[in-house]
């Protein structure tokens, strides 16, 4: 065994897309890591933080810190939730030196799934086969806060049978934005349409991303317009054989 990783299965994955969590575990085990899941975990606190409820976000973030205090590596199937922990916890605990210490010690151990594979596990070919034409959506927090751009594409290119077709506006936001998608439902819906136009122009059979929340937005809108086009989390593609 290469080592042990602890999964942080985000609330969206846990509740709505559990197969993504299982797929992530499959891939990690396949490349030689021992996988554990701490059942006390819940959420990173981002919904409240982004909505301006920082006290509530802090309570949930503190719970996260407790659950994962002694984990060697924490692997997350989301750029957005990873960034909440590695980029925004510090702001949340700015006036709490003890918690800040914990945040700093944790930060280097929290990894977004694709980044973990490439930078910690050091694998690019995970032995996957997926015979589909796909396009890749850059999720905003992964792209701009974690600087994840080429990594997932490198992993995809090593998947047997897969063809990656870039869309014109891969870096443009899908319009999800958490509570933004309900507070400004019309604007968010219009943003999804623009994204979908670009996806459909590629002729791909589906969209791959490293964030299930973006995929929920994209798929939710696709289902109304082009129900045949699918969405996959990167972990599902990499787990496929």
């Amino acid at each position, binding site marked *: 065994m290469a080592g042990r990783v602890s999964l942080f*299965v985000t*609330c969206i*994955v*846990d*509740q*709505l897309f*559990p197969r993504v*969590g*299982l797929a992530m*575990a499959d891939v990690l085990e396949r490349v030689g890591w021992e996988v554990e*899941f701490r*059942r006390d975990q*819940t*959420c990173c*606190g981002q919904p*409240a*933080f*982004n*909505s*301006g*409820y*920082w006290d*509530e976000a802090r*309570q*949930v973030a503190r*719970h996260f810190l407790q659950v994962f205090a002694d984990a060697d590596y924490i692997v997350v199937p989301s750029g957005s939730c990873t960034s909440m922990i590695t980029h*925004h916890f510090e*702001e949340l605990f700015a006036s709490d030196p003890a918690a800040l210490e914990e945040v700093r010690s944790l930060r280097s151990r929290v990894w977004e799934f694709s980044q973990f594979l490439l930078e910690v596990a050091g694998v690019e070919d995970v032995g996957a086969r997926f015979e589909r034409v796909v396009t890749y959506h850059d999720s*905003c*927090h992964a792209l*701009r806060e974690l600087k994840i751009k080429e990594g997932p594409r490198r992993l995809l290119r090593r998947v047997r049978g897969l063809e990656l077709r870039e869309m014109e506006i891969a*870096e*443009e*936001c899908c*319009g*999800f*934005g*958490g*509570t*933004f*998608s*309900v*507070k*400004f*439902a*019309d*604007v*968010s*819906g*219009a*943003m*999804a349409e*623009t994204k979908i136009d670009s996806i459909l122009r590629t002729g791909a059979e589906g969209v791959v991303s490293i964030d299930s929340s973006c995929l929920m*937005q994209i*798929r*939710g*809108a696709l*289902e*109304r317009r082009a*129900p045949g086009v699918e969405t996959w989390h990167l972990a599902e593609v990499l787990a496929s054989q």
Partner: protein
Amino acid sequence: MRPIPVESLRATLSNQPLEEAIYASTRRLMEKRAASIPEHLREDFQKWREQAHRIKRHTLENLDYYLELLEDRLRARGGKLVYARDGAEVARFITEVAKERGVRLVVKSKSMTTEEIHLNEWLEREGIETVETDLGEYIIQLAGERPSHIVAPALHKTRYQIADLFHEKLRVEREEEPEKQTLIARRVLREKFLSAGLGVTGANFVVAESGSIAIIENEGNARLCSSLPPIHIAVAGIEKLVPRARDLAVFFKLLGRSGTGQPLTVYTSLLTGPRREGEIDGPEEFYLVLLDSGRTKVLAEPRRRESLYCIRCGACLNHCPVYRKIGGHNYPWVYSGPIGAIITPQFHGMEKDWWLPFASSLCGACGEVCPVKIDIPRILLDLRAEAVREKIRSGEARLERLAFRLWAWVMTHPKVYEAAGLFNLALRDDESGWKDTVPGVFHAGPLKEWLRFRKLPAPPAKTFRDLWAARRQKEALEE
């Protein structure tokens, strides 16, 4: 607190030609910007952004010193510095000067600061004709509208609309070619330049050590406004200062590229006081009006002070997926897009414009392109927290706060979280796939809004934690 202007947003979103005009124009500006920062410049460009950020920080943290220096230096060159607390004081000063000198016509070049204070309306009320001479500004002045973009004020208008506008207002032949439209405007405006008694401009930068102002532009109209009439009044916010002339270099390189994708704009003017003996052109009198109007309030807030570093390039608008959908006119103030979303509530208070920081998917594109590295996403988050505090104080967030408190309680009690099955509770049914509706009582609030544009995934029968437990159990049995 004022509600989100949902109806107005909807009207824009359903206006197809407007949507296309905004999306296509901003796309062009994005592409031009990208093309002006080729591969070999990328590293330098990032260094320029940092340098510009540091210059702005230094200047604003020592603003008292630089303002005094500026006043001395400008006086030494025969110009005069005037401080204005608000728009009314600016207007009063310009009116006084105009009336004393018998000026009936004022020509103006493009200036967001004068748009901000509605200078034209003030002057018109005093019976002073005021003419915008930047083509875009001239178009929207004729149309009686306000700018929808910081750099391209008439970005929301098509050339066909402009053809109609010129035909109606200027009584000229209907002309759809942009080049010919430009010639029509030019003919009208030349006359105005020659007969104006006073020119008003903005200032992109104000140099403390030399008492100069710097104006960059593409049409040459600002140069005419500042040199043809006998009096030149420049209006700028107090945040426009830079210490030295040499500091301008980095800002010129950033501003042209970020705004319009030009390494340098067509005209770059450095103006220092009025015409001196032996010089062949320039105004007889020069005044620099420095405006506060909320700026000192922002300056006093260290966490958000960098909002004042803005050099008004408009890059954050062009790259904002929200601005590109709703355009500039849905923003309550002349400053739209991400920068408008962070400065409007800071200048005007949360009361009216609390919703602006929430009108963002937090995608971060604005922060990535900002030439002076204003951390717009962080400030949006900060203002959201401030808006919530304000709402709680005024008792308007009771239900929302209760919801988040309940959520936090559930999320810190894993057993409750598991039992609650958060999403599942409301939605689970036997059918899998993506759903149009949810059962009766749940078809409300956030779920209802979501379903207006998107379907929802039917929650699976088992959550990850259930499946994981089953998998581990199965593995144990197999061993």
